[in-house]
């Protein structure tokens, strides 16, 4: 019965003495480490901001919800958060879960800031050929990841024949696969095998056997860590010893746990940042994060941290905790300095940022290089 009052409060969170921000993440389920890292980063940021007095004189109140790495759950969580009066939403981490909640927020005219969803369609409706007004993201996008990796493989590693293995039930994975193929063949490389799997799979030998028959120099697997790790492990068991390449989905402590360090030696993936980056801004963040959570922050923690600060900046800029005004402010943000780089949004609400290439060495991530995909 008590919940009835929330809906009547049409002016939403602003009326209270806190600013409510939705935090919808994958805290359990298949890809729980992504969401958990993002959430931790966000909460750290909000904590710091609130300690310094909050924004517009008010404290930020994050409303954290677990979407269980499930699309339908993500939608229902978003509906719930909206009815609790949030003025903006941060998350989820993965493309699919963001896409699932998007219509609810757009209908409610509440801005959505995605942290790690990298597929182009997150901010851009390809069918209607128009930008999604209320959706922003602070991460690089997949064509950039694919381009950087394709160039790196062709120019630096000088590998010719590649194989691609994607999760065909995942737009992120499928998109990256397509982009990579396009850029790699443009560079004169050859894709000798393309295989697919579905996200519920855990046996990949059939596909790997087919790939092995084509004798590629490397295998590109842009997918989430829970599957990547099994794929690499099973490949090694089948005696496939070529390097694997991938994208930000690889960044999880679980990758090494499951696949085992030696299987990963010589593999590369693209990412949003690297803990190894000596820049002081990054190292300060790493220290603070480690102090609070006792683990090394991965890229998603960094993205979450940036998202928290970016959101606060936008609210400050908007001058009022009003969703429409915050949206406007987000669009106008320029040269925001975050741990994952300097960012402004392009016309499709995407930031233009550097892509890091990470190499796996004995279970540790090593920063190989940072590249700017486009100007």
């Amino acid at each position, binding site marked *: 019965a008590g919940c009835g009052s929330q809906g009547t409060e049409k002016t939403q969170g602003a009326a209270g003495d806190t600013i409510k921000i939705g935090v919808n993440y994958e805290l359990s389920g298949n890809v729980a480490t992504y969401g958990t890292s993002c959430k931790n980063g966000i909460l750290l940021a909000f904590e710091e901001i609130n300690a310094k007095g909050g924004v517009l004189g008010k404290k930020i109140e994050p409303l954290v919800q677990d979407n269980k790495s499930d699309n339908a759950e993500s939608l229902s969580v978003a509906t719930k958060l909206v009815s609790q009066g949030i003025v903006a939403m941060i998350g989820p981490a993965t493309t699919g879960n963001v896409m699932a909640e998007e219509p609810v927020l757009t209908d409610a005219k509440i801005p959505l800031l995605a942290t790690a969803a990298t597929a182009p369609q997150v901010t851009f409706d390809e069918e209607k050929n128009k930008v999604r007004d209320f959706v922003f993201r602070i991460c690089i996008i997949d064509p950039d990841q694919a381009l950087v990796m394709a160039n790196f493989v062709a120019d630096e590693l000088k590998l010719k024949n590649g194989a691609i293995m994607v999760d065909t039930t995942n737009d992120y994975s499928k998109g990256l696969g397509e982009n990579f193929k396009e850029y790699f063949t443009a560079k004169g490389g050859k894709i000798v095998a393309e295989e697919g799997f579905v996200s519920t799979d855990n046996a990949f030998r059939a596909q790997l*056997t087919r790939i092995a028959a084509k004798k590629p120099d490397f295998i590109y697997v842009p997918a989430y860590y829970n599957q990547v790790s099994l794929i690499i492990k099973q490949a090694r068991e089948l005696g496939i010893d070529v390097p694997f390449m991938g994208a930000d989905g690889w960044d999880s402590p679980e990758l090494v746990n499951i696949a085992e360090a030696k299987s990963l030696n010589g593999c590369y993936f693209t990412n949003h940042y690297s803990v190894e980056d000596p820049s002081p801004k990054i190292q300060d963040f790493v220290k603070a994060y480690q102090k609070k959570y006792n683990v090394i922050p991965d890229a998603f923690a960094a993205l979450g941290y940036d998202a928290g600060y970016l959101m606060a900046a936008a609210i400050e800029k908007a001058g009022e905790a009003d969703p429409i005004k915050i949206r406007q402010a987000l669009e106008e943000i320029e040269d925001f300095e975050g741990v994952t780089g300097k960012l402004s949004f392009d016309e499709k609400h995407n930031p233009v940022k550097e892509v890091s290439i990470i190499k796996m060495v004995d279970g540790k991530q090593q920063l190989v290089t940072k590249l700017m995909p486009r100007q």
Partner: protein
Amino acid sequence: MQDLLQQLLNGLSLGSIYALIAVGYTMVYGIVQLINFAHGDVMMVGAYVALGAALLGLGFVPSLVLAMIVCSLLGVVIERVAYRPVRPVSRLAALTSAIGVSLFLEYAVMFVLSPKVWTYPAILKERIFRVGGIVITSKDLLVLGTTLVLVVILQYIIYRTRIGKAMRAVSFDGTAAQLMGVNVNSTVGVTFAIGSAMAAAAGLLIGLYFNTVQPLMGLMPGLKAFIAAVLGGIGSVPGAMLGGILLGMTEALVSGFGGSMYRDAVAFGILILILLIRPTGLLGKGIQEKA
């Protein structure tokens, strides 16, 4: 050709995993006439128990034995608490209860141990054999071998021992079995204990095979195992093995010919086809109803 052989072997290895779960499944299923939907989750618990044992430094065999003991107790408790009061009333109600138990195990484990994925320490030396270009791993042999052994053991128990005879009698008519001096409750209890111990063994092996242990790991294999059991003929232990291997082979071949997207559809399609031709599964005994 070599590829085809390798794919068949992949299928055999995947199939023996299905079979491994399916044999315990089908035994309980055949005798109690209950779709023990929680079987896959008992397997999951077995995998965790064995993992715990392994992390404490126990070797393969002690971990296995411990997991089997714990799970057989778990099986007995589940039967006692969730199935026994329901079974006589309605099979479908028992199914509801089983769905409840399945969810309970999954989410209780998730609550207690977090949803995170665990991996096994190296408790078994892994070896890779190459026979004329075909790769076989020691894990494949282990899984296949264990399944075979379990099938033999179960067949022996069901057809050659007193308790097996009691199980079969109970499965057909509990009251009549009582009149033959069979203790129905303890027979069903033993059935669950054995079935759950088999699940635990499967749990350890599957945990090792995929090197991952997580609370929902029983769901899909459980379903596939159930399908394998039906395919082979409900209650038939060799049928479950056959069904499992057939399912695994089909899936590997479909994937192996580039149809991985349609793999589940083809597998189900074949299942339905086989059932249409043999409505009681491959090795199931159907009796024509007498009017």
